[in-house]
């Protein structure tokens, strides 16, 4: 069987996680890695045994052998790179958020349709086991109709970002757009469409940033359910990344967090305990496999551009609400960032 050939653009945080998953897929060859900084591209090429590395992404989108482009670059570059890749006929897997502007999202979606390429936004929660099991429980009606949900995601400041782009509001949109988008997307997936958003937050701790580092939002869904979503980048430096989800319906309730459900806890001299739930076919493996299969078997991948755009609209409404200090109804009438 001929292998699917892929190129990954961006050699940063998420790209490393994706590469680890790409390398576990037997029917795939990662042919090239691209980064604007040669050293970074070279480092990942060596680390993952990738034959080619470039600083110019046009090199890979013009390579006729490549089937899939995995765009793992900072959010503010998503539109241009994905659109260029699609115009070269490449199938595109794009890291979340789809974009920072709704018109960019629209252009990406339109291009993917026009070019007839496969396109998926990597909202990885839809592949994480606790979230897929939750989805199944809810869909099977085991807790009745969803009425109230609570989700939070807490992290120290992500100071690893390339040239600190996450600190720049105009490049990342801040914690709600970059991180809480996971929970918002998941809640949309299981509850339905959001009608109104109220959010409160600010640049509370990270004084050299323009990105909001703490936000909480109250969501009202069209079906009458409500949800609390909280995102924090103001945790202490040694704080373990923490997620929590609670859903209550007319027939029951469920809750899950990532610390009390760990299967492995490691304690080392002089450092905090780290816990994890290792699974060989993990969320990233399943996500990338799903996209590869959509190309090989020719089906529509599960997280369409439109889905990602709807999620983006909710988080942007949150940012708008926070800036104006009033509830914001959907749909949005204009852009919020930039």
């Amino acid at each position, binding site marked *: 069987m001929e292998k699917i050939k892929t190129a990954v653009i961006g050699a940063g945080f998420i790209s490393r996680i994706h590469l680890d998953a790409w390398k576990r897929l037997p029917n795939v060859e990662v042919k090239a890695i691209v980064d604007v900084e040669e050293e970074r591209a070279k480092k990942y090429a060596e680390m993952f045994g990738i034959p080619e590395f470039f600083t110019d992404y046009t090199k890979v989108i013009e390579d006729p052998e490549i089937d899939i482009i995995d765009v793992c670059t900072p959010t503010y570059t998503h539109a241009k790179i994905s659109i260029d890749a699609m115009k070269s006929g490449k199938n595109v897997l794009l890291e979340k958020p789809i974009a920072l502007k709704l018109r960019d999202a629209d252009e990406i979606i339109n291009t993917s349709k026009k070019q007839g390429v496969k396109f998926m936004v990597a909202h990885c929660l839809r592949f994480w086991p606790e979230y897929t099991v939750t989805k199944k429980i809810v869909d099977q009606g085991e807790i009745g109709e969803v*009425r*109230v949900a*609570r989700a*939070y995601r*807490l992290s120290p400041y992500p100071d690893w970002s390339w040239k600190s782009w996450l600190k720049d509001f105009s490049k990342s949109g801040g914690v709600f757009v970059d991180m809480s988008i996971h929970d918002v997307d998941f809640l949309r997936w299981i509850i339905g469409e959001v009608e*109104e958003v*109220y*959010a*409160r*937050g*600010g640049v*509370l*701790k990270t004084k050299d940033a323009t990105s909001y580092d*703490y936000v*909480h939002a*109250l969501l*009202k869904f069209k*079906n*009458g*359910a*409500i*949800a*609390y979503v*909280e995102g*924090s980048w*103001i*945790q*202490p430096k040694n*704080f373990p990344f923490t997620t929590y989800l609670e859903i*209550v*319906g*007319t027939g*029951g*309730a469920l809750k899950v967090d990532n610390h009390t459900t760990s299967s492995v806890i490691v304690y080392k001299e002089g450092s905090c305990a780290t816990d994890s739930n290792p699974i060989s076919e993990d969320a990233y493996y399943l996500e990338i496999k799903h996209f590869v299969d959509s190309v090989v078997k020719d089906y529509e991948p599960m997280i369409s551009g439109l889905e990602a755009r709807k999620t983006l609209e909710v988080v942007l409404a949150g940012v708008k609400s926070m800036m104006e*200090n*009033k*509830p914001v109804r959907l749909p949005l009438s204009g852009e919020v960032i930039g």
Partner: protein
Amino acid sequence: MRKIRFGIISFAHIHAWSYARVIKELENAELVAIYDDDPQRLKQAAEKYGVKDVYNNYEDLLKRDDIDAVIITSENAKHPPQAISSAEHGKHMIVEKPIAVDLKDADEMVRAANRYNVKFQTAFVMRYHDATSTVKKLLDNKEIGEILVVTTTNHGKYPGLWFGVPELSGGGSMIDHTVHTADLMRWYTGDEVEEVYAVIGKNIRKELSVEDTGLISLKFKRGVIGSIDCSWSRPSTWPIWGDVWLAIFGTEGYIVIDAFRPNIDLVKEGKPLRWEYFGSDADRNMIKDFIRVIEEDATPRATGWDGRQALEITLAAYRSAKSGEVVKLPL
């Protein structure tokens, strides 16, 4: 040693039973008389706590000279006349939260306590839980720097009884479950709330005429951000009645309080998992401290005014949920 002689005005609120238990346990307290407007409940409480002097008219109980203090644990809406009369009769009092369902009533209660010079403590038991008071010290010592955000939940099962009858309760889960953590936020920040936004969702229990879901976002005058998840969202088979949970985000750290988490997993054949609590006895701490306040002529840790302020936050949340707008305080 002189004992503080207590009367309990109504066993309508479930907390009354625990307070009676504590008074019976304490060496320097005595449960002298009880009142209830429900004859069967009065009889039941009298038998359970071995109280001989029972009343179906609270004025008669309050007229007695040998009672120092009362605990008012009637339905929320019945507190004001009982509290005002208690003050007029010179009785120190603990009033169950929310102290009233209306701000005007709350103000009159506070005024009456001042005028007749009696101690007025709001039953904000959470200020007396050893987890929250330990954290108060940590915060005052600036162990996590300055407070930036306080996220809280007070989830519970639907308590039943009169809690779903708006004429008696003043509302649903929001009035029942906002004040505890709102009060803790006020206590920790030493600040007052400036604005509130709240949403109420579709009910979990369709048969209720009051809300059973609610989410509140608030801001304090000096900028601290807060949230309250105040739903009756726990199914009847949940292993414990509910929770009081707070996460405090500081400039130099983060603290989580899960006050009712110390539990033993207990599973009986054919029954759902049950959590047997072994944590701090906040009710006991609260009544012990009330006795100290009376003996030392001190100020309660949670005063009637604190009760009034927390009520105002709750009422602002209702106003916001109804109008769909951010509500500024004072109302």
